[in-house]
């Protein structure tokens, strides 16, 4: 039960040190690429940029990508590589416009919230030109933002060049790592083909259509780039996306490797290794806590739905007491395996809970089990991971989010030692706090606001598959996932419209799919770019400041004491923001009567 998470975390920690050093070298341009690659790099170099130019380049690049993505998806029926099979003899049609908007935004923002099913709705062309391309570039955007922020914190005269950073990250980091991972996955049995779905005769008389495709091309970067958008609707629970227990470990490690390594890169680029180690440790404490919580409550506890339930009286002021009927236990032996509902057993009993913690801590969003089948309390882990959004977090942006918390921590703790707060020798003043608070505000606003809206209206109430607290969790999860740019789903939410032509769909479009498409799409956009641009401005503002020398009166940011300050700040601020909504979701479900149906 505990071996798997220990194996995954241990391996990643060991790998993160050399890879972090390698990344620092790449970003600082110390790596000597082959001549023809350097030729391309020089063509892209538009010269040193200040933060505004850097942010502008980032926005322009993303705008172009958005238009390109929209075109590819909108023209899907007429573009090549539109595989025809038994289910879709005419190939894939056009998705509904809101779904296209949602999908394009989702892949642009590294979220990969999928309001569609890959094998049903996308052609191979869309998978390769849209999904794959976006997975490389959108992952690099966060990476580049972090690189620029570090340069600002380091006091560099400029923030680097966005296009050069993009090139270095994609070509020297993501491509080689993806090729290696891809080969390992193919070796483990992952399909890599442009052939349409196979039609096979099953042992029972009858035929089955088995979807396949260039899965191994997309899978490596799906995890390395913490993208999480599955080739198939079932994501990494699907045997073609995650064939064996070993590929499961490989996928977990490849989800975590860059978020872990980036902290090492941060320390190396700033030449502040002790400080980086403190941040690493703080994140690790929270991460281990999250995994431990999920595994303990899911693998260590039985599924309450299968247990005997006593008679329970629900007494509410103004209503007659309601007595729930007692339930007998189902004849299922859950000892040692815990809650197996919604899990893929080939990965091992604790694989689902572990994967859930891993994928939400670092905003990957791929899943190998159904998160809404986790025991209610275990379901807190993925929610908390996405709501904190800084437990390692997505590549680059996770650390940037952590830096925002860090600035708040430094501000409060710095005052407590009787000086104007300083971070890395730079004074934190009104302008920095304004930017930090702006970045900090975005996430809670974009989670709680829409959750409130959808929870009160039929948009949310009628879209949930389950009544009561579980249904509320579905809404809360969806917006937490969108705002954290995570992309995993709680399942059970009716948010799929599918093809624009309703008759082409295998199942009827959900009533409120368009509302969900638009709302989550907007949330993803804002919560992607504001928390990147504000810290860029903050770092640039710090870069301009004079360096204050270190004295015994300066608060150190590389001590255990500061580690506690940082941990306390993240936990306290996180708790204050999301505790009420979590109480209404998983906590209420846990304490509530069972079954809690209509």
């Amino acid at each position, binding site marked *: 039960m505990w071996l798997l998470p220990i194996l995954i975390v241990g391996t990643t920690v060991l790998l993160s040190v050399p890879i972090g050093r390698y990344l620092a070298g790449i970003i600082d341009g110390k790596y000597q690429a082959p001549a023809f690659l350097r030729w391309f790099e020089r063509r892209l170099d538009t010269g040193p940029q200040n933060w505004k130019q850097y942010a502008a380049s980032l926005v322009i690049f993303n705008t172009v990508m958005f238009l390109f993505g929209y075109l590819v998806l909108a023209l899907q029926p007429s573009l090549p590589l539109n595989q025809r099979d038994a289910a879709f003899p005419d190939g894939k049609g056009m998705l509904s416009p809101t779904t296209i908007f949602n999908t394009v935004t989702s892949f642009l923002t590294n979220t990969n919230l999928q309001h569609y099913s890959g094998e049903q709705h996308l052609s191979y062309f869309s998978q390769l030109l849209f999904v794959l391309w976006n997975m490389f570039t959108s992952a690099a955007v966060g990476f580049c933002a972090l690189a620029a922020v570090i340069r600002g914190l380091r006091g560099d005269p400029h923030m680097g060049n966005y296009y050069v950073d993009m090139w270095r990250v994609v070509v020297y980091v993501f491509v080689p790592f993806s090729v290696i991972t891809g080969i390992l996955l193919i070796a483990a049995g992952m399909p890599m083909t442009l052939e349409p779905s196979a039609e096979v005769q099953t042992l029972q008389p009858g035929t089955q259509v088995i979807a396949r495709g260039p899965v191994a091309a997309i899978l490596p970067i799906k995890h390395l780039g913490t993208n999480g958008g599955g080739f198939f609707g079932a994501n990494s629970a699907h045997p073609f996306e995650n064939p064996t227990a070993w590929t499961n470990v490989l996928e977990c490690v490849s989800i975590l490797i860059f978020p872990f390594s980036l902290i090492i890169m941060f320390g190396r680029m700033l030449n502040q290794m002790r400080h980086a180690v403190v941040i690493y440790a703080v994140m690790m404490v929270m991460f281990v806590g999250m995994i431990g919580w999920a595994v303990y409550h899911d693998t260590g506890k039985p599924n309450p739905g299968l247990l005997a339930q006593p008679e329970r009286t*629900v007494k*509410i*002021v*103004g*209503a*007659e007491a*309601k007595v729930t009927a007692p339930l007998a236990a189902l004849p299922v032996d859950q000892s040692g395996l815990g809650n197996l509902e919604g899990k893929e057993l080939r990965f091992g009993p604790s694989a689902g809970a572990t994967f859930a913690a891993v994928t939400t801590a670092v905003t990957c969003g791929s899943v190998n089990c159904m998160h809404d089948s986790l025991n209610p309390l275990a379901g807190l882990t993925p929610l908390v991971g996405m709501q904190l959004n800084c437990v390692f977090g997505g590549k680059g942006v996770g650390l940037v989010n952590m830096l925002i918390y860090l600035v*708040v921590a430094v*501000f*409060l*703790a710095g*005052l*407590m*030692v*009787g*000086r*104007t707060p300083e971070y890395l*020798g730079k004074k*934190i*003043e*009104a302008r*920095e*706090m304004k930017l930090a*608070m*702006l970045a900090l*505000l975005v996430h*809670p606003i974009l989670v*709680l606001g829409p*959750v*409130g*809206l959808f*929870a*009160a209206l039929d948009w*949310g*109430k009628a879209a949930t598959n389950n009544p*009561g607290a579980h*249904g*509320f969790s579905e809404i809360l999860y969806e917006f937490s996932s969108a705002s954290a740019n995570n992309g995993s789903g709680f399942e059970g939410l009716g948010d799929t419209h599918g093809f624009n032509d309703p008759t082409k769909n295998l199942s009827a479009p959900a009533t409120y799919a368009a509302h969900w498409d638009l709302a989550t799409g907007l949330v993803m956009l804002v919560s992607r770019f504001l928390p990147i641009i504000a810290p860029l401005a903050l770092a640039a503002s710090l870069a301009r400041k004079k360096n*204050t*020398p270190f*004295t*015994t*009166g*300066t*608060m150190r940011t590389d001590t255990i*004491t500061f580690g506690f300050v940082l941990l306390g700040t993240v936990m*306290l*601020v996180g*708790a*204050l923001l999301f*505790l*009420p909504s979590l*109480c*209404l979701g998983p906590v*209420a479900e846990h*304490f*509530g*009567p069972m079954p*809690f149906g*209509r």
Partner: protein
Amino acid sequence: MTTTLDQPNAKLARRASRQLSLFAPDLVKPAIGRAFVMLRPDILWKNPVMFVVEVGTALSILYTAYKVIDPNSTLASLGYLIALDVWLFLTVLFANFAEALAEARGKAQADSLRKTRQDSTAWRLRLVDTTNIPPGTLATWTKEPRQFIDEVPSSRLKTGDLVIVEAGQVIPADGEIVEGIASVDESAITGESAPVVREGGGDRSGVTGGTRVLSDAILVRITAAAGQSFLDRMIALVEGASRQRTPNEIALSLVLSAFTLIFLIVVVALWPMAANAEDYMKGYVGVETLKSLGTDIPTLVALLVCLIPTTIGALLAAIGIAGMDRALRANLIAKSGKAVEVAGDIDTLLLDKTGTITLGNRRATRFVPLDNLAATEVGLLAALSSAADETPEGKSIVELHRRSPDAAPALPPPGSKFVGFTAQTRMSGVDLPDGRVIRKGAADAVVKYVKAQNGTIPATTDDQVNAFASQGMTPLLIAEGNAIVGLVVLEDVLKPGIKDRFDRLRKMGIRTVMVTGDNPLTAKSIAAQAGVDDYIAEATPEAKLAYIRKEQYGGRLVAMMGDGTNDAPALAQADLGVAMNSGTQAAKEAGNMVDLDSDPTKLIEVVEIGKQLLMTRGALTTFSVANDLAKYFAIVPALFAGTLPWLKSIDVMNLTSPTSAILSAVIFNAIIIPLLIPISLKGVTYRPVGADALLRRNLLVWGLGGVIVPFVGIKVIDLMLTAVGLA
């Protein structure tokens, strides 16, 4: 029978008296009145946190009124709603009271200072050209008949006016002595009873309005018209009238506003979430209507008020005013609140050697014979040569000789001729009537003098001189006739306890730099003895300025103290320039603080006051935010008691009822404000133990304490509410 307080009791009594003065009735009464005045939205608007509370209170009162009209509007009882309104209102009132009390204390301070500002009559010269004053003007005018002098009230004096102040008169306004010398009683502003000498032309030419001339007459040019002196500016600052928010205060207010906004979102979003829960529970238990406190507006307002940082929001202004007030108590006049704040950030302290590190002037500490004389004989010769020397060094030589046990009295016989010190000879001495010629002076000057007379120079002279000089002492050679007989050693005497103070500063992370006119060798040795980190020897105003610039280039903030006109550029350049009140007008204009006591060690105090100010802000903010956790555990289960009763499981405090839980949280939130007023006014104790230890301590007290205290407090209030049957 007499009772003597033992040590701890005396300390307690002192503390008690301080407590008493903190809430003295004559301060509290006007503060309460002012607290009500400050309820006006146009005043409260400046404090966003408390403004939100006020708006919330108004909203809550409206809903209470609506409950009276339509009793079915909410399931909350009228008594509960009224209690909420009262306590929300009290929250605002307490916050206003904290600020008003701080202002009242400042005013009280200011009033005592203003007493020195009584209108007096000034003798103004009727001169056309007041800019060009020839020497001797004072003498001319004091002889002139009085009709050439206007008697005007001091309040009508303008900058540039010339006034004559005679013995017994009060100096009408701040000014600078143009001519004359007088002893002045400055006790009215410094509290120091010994009179000080002020004279024109030098670095001690500044006079302060309200002080009294004890002897002689002076001609004073008014430099600050009535109402514009430093004191007036300071009075306005502590009274809060012209208080501008300091940079750090602005940054902190911004953080507090952002937190307020965040919690506003949390609470606003909670309403539809609670409605969602009500909706599905309606279906579950099968009723038409279901209401919980989660959709009750006054209750949500209460939650919001509990969550937003009201504690620090209420006390922030008071902390700032109290910082200024503490500076004023230390007899420091800050020209802005920013100056006090900057003091906490100081990295480098420039301290004058004389008066700060050493006791005034050098003293003779020993006589060393170079010839075959005894030390006492050298002493006698040295004392004879210094008999007429009025300099402190000369006097200390006579004094040292007198104290030696078997000394012959050093009384020069009548007819002795004294030779004074000149910059050319760099010697002084006496020609006795019996023909003996005694000289003392700088080593090289005396050696030259003796050589010129073909005298003998003992072989050990050079070694001895260098040996003493290298220890930071000043050896003076004594010659009788053409023979060098010995030397007098002059030494700087360190102020007692100065080394400990520097240790304290080092622990605070502050570099100390000694500024002295001495040669590098002497300076180095004294620096080592006193334990300063660096020194500027043979310091000129330019050297000081250059040093400050160098430090600032390295990102350090520099503080210095000065009095002379030639200190002005350095005072202006320094991040914190403290001018002595006895100093020139130029120096006072250049600095950003004026020390009424003219005490050079005051810089250390200034730094501590600044640090205390920032620490108090940080500690109370942390406390305020940490408090919220407990309030959640009290309020969230209460909000949903009507819909999701099983959430009672997270009510770790096990409070009596939903309404008592919410009321207890609101009451705790309100009364913590007046409870913390003493700390915000007195400041969190600063200990020079290094940043890390300080942080650990404050984290434990204010961070962890901030998490734990409300759990206890809310539970206690709930028990009390239950006991009196209000739960």
